[in-house]
């Protein structure tokens, strides 16, 4: 798994490549959580993620909660149909803001 972070103005885009499960939990947490500062705008590009385990979803939700607490905005982009379905039937999807593309996500963040 790899995470690349690009920063442009007040927007941060983290692109994740690879599966997210408990074996990479601390790495994801250590990389993403520092992005979550007061009023930050964050896009997580998940196009390169094929599988997210139960622990993976929990890492994301926990990060999302921290973002909400700091009034930061976090949007998930590029979820595969399978991941979206898993998130939907397990109730996780309800908690996230999801967008189909980075451009749409940017618009949402501006709006």
């Amino acid at each position, binding site marked *: 798994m790899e995470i690349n972070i690009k920063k442009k103005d007040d927007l941060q885009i983290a692109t994740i490549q690879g599966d997210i499960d408990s*074996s990479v939990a601390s790495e994801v947490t250590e990389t993403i959580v520092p992005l979550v500062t007061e009023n930050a705008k964050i896009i997580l590009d998940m196009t390169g993620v094929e599988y997210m385990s*139960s*622990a993976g979803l929990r890492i994301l939700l926990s990060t999302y909660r921290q973002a909400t607490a700091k009034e930061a905005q976090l949007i998930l982009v590029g979820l595969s149909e399978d991941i979206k379905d*898993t998130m939907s*039937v*397990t*109730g*996780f999807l309800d908690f996230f803001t999801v967008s189909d593309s980075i451009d749409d996500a940017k618009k949402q963040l501006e709006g």
Partner: protein
Amino acid sequence: MQRIDVHPTHTHGKFKLRRGNPAPFGATFVPGGVNFSIFSSHATSCTLVLFEKHAPKPFGEIPFPDEFRIGNVYSMIVFDLDYENIEYGYRMDGPNNFQEGHWFDKNKVLLDPYAKIIGGRDVWGTPPDWDDMYHHRARIAFDDFDWEDDRPLEIAPEDQIIYEMHVRSFTKHQSSAIKESHRGTFAGIRDKIPYLKELGVNAIELMPVYEFDEFENSRPNPTTGETLYNYWGYSTVGFFSPKAGYAATGKFGMQVDELKAMVKELHKNGIEVILDVVFNHTAEGNERGPTISFRGIDNKTYYMLTPEGYYYNFSGCGNTLNCNNPIVRGIVLDCLRYWASEYHIDGFRFDLASILGRDPWGAPLSNPPLLETLAFDPILAKCKLIAEAWDAGGLYQVGSFPAYGRWGEWNGKYRDAIRKFLKADTTVGEMAQRLQGSPDLYEGAGRAPATSINFITAHDGFTLMDMVSYNGKHNEANGENNNDGSNDNDSWNCGWEGETDNEYINALRHRQIKNAIALLMVSQGVPMMLMGDEMGRTKYGNNNTYCHDNELNWLNWDLLKQNNDIFQFTKNCINFRKAHPVLRNTWHFQNRDYVGSGYADISWHGTQAWNADWSEDAKAIAFMLCGKHAKGGTVEDNYIYVATNVYWDALWFEIPQLPPGLQWHVFANTAMASPEDSWTPGSEPVLQDQYGMLVGDRSTVILVGK
């Protein structure tokens, strides 16, 4: 400040350890590690066995150091585990002496009875590796679901309308028209919530959802070669784990979240979830059954044993859980508390519940501690507790189940009476009791009408369509020479055994089905219907389809079109029940006018108003409910009059007169063709002749006075 117990104190090879906490039992997250705790009254030592997920061999075995045992409980914290990718089990050493009841064998890896997730049967019907040293594998669950504002709905018992269903059967058929990966799963039920809402039921009762082994006793069908399974799942492997094969996400081990998300969504839509729980026996079966868990951990504690060491078989399934041993009572209570608090389950239906009232030697107890404990438990205080008040050992307690003011009962006498009445085979006297919530069974003991779970059909026995299409059972496909399943079906085929093109017979069958549904929905107590009866589901005369993973069990949703008249009628009857509190009384009728309306709360009639014929050969009965007595006179409702004629000819009924200014309206008349057989509540047409009406042969009429 950091606690000092986040640091290991012991090591075993590469594993870092610390003394664990005896409570709670099972595997729980603690800072830095996982706390493992298990008890055995008779083991001499215990070893924790750790596997990587799906691995054939363990990667570590850690004997519990002596100093980690408190009393009979072994507990240990293991640090730095990749908790998501491990499976754990135990080896227990101790005496192995059949007559003494001890089955210890340290060569076997045993499932934790408190396992919250069980791997090994992750995807329904995937054949297991029979050489696997550990079939049902404990995993560690996150109990961190976000319920937001949800909690159990606490619908008043008398307001419930229960729909009994089997998770896989409900949506497995392709006609369910949902996403293929959701068919037969918890996610599938969630997809069908709009349907359940349209039907109007407000509680679903799920046939067993605790992990079971569909391959238990699996075998080829002697005629077709098709695999016969333990399909219904009345054979528990683990009491704390949802069935992985029932989850679309079971292959990812996410069945816990999927089931919780389903419950949450049902609650959002006003629908409760009741679980059918099987505490009378386990999947380990008799002396020849597999050693999965209990038998190898503490056989003598968990099971009722004969003096010679054999299993008592009050369940008819090989063994009997020793429910009134204090330790076993503890695990049953822990289990139900867990499901009530962690899964927000609204109620439990206890399979063969009379076993729960037997002492460790099988004798029925007058004051069974387990049933009393459950009745008074603070966490379960608002849960519905429903007993199947009999067992396979001959104990039959309908009307006498030790209730402590809390327990409801599947009213088998209601089922039998209505079935017999529909074929003109019982007295109107008994019918009158059943329609009133069986006061003959419950009132004297101070038990409310809602004690009575009224049902005509359930998973055991015929569907409603089969009840009017078959005189006898046709269980050949079960491979037991038609010897299995009940012979007491009280059914009548309406003139032809099985499916027919005969229009008269089919019309009569639909009418009989509607009569049954109408009577069920106007009876005091709690109506329970069987999945698919609202669309004329058939199992082709098989009354015991426990082993079929095919169309004998899968609900065919195309029937909804084919038998739309039955669906519309059922829906109207459910709405009618919901619209009229007088049908959902909290206490029994007093047969008198105690509010000064001029009418008794209930009055009985026959073909002559105010003059019911109670004779043995009477074939018609009518009753009138006074709306001013609804819920003990606390709310106002309309007058309701129900006339039912099980005679083979039409009968003229004189109708009781309403107070001035009110008129009788026709809500339902099963003799009429759809859509004029029933009306949506509020749109009922006025009855033309307010003094009398013809009730067709084998028909029911329901009037509402307003």
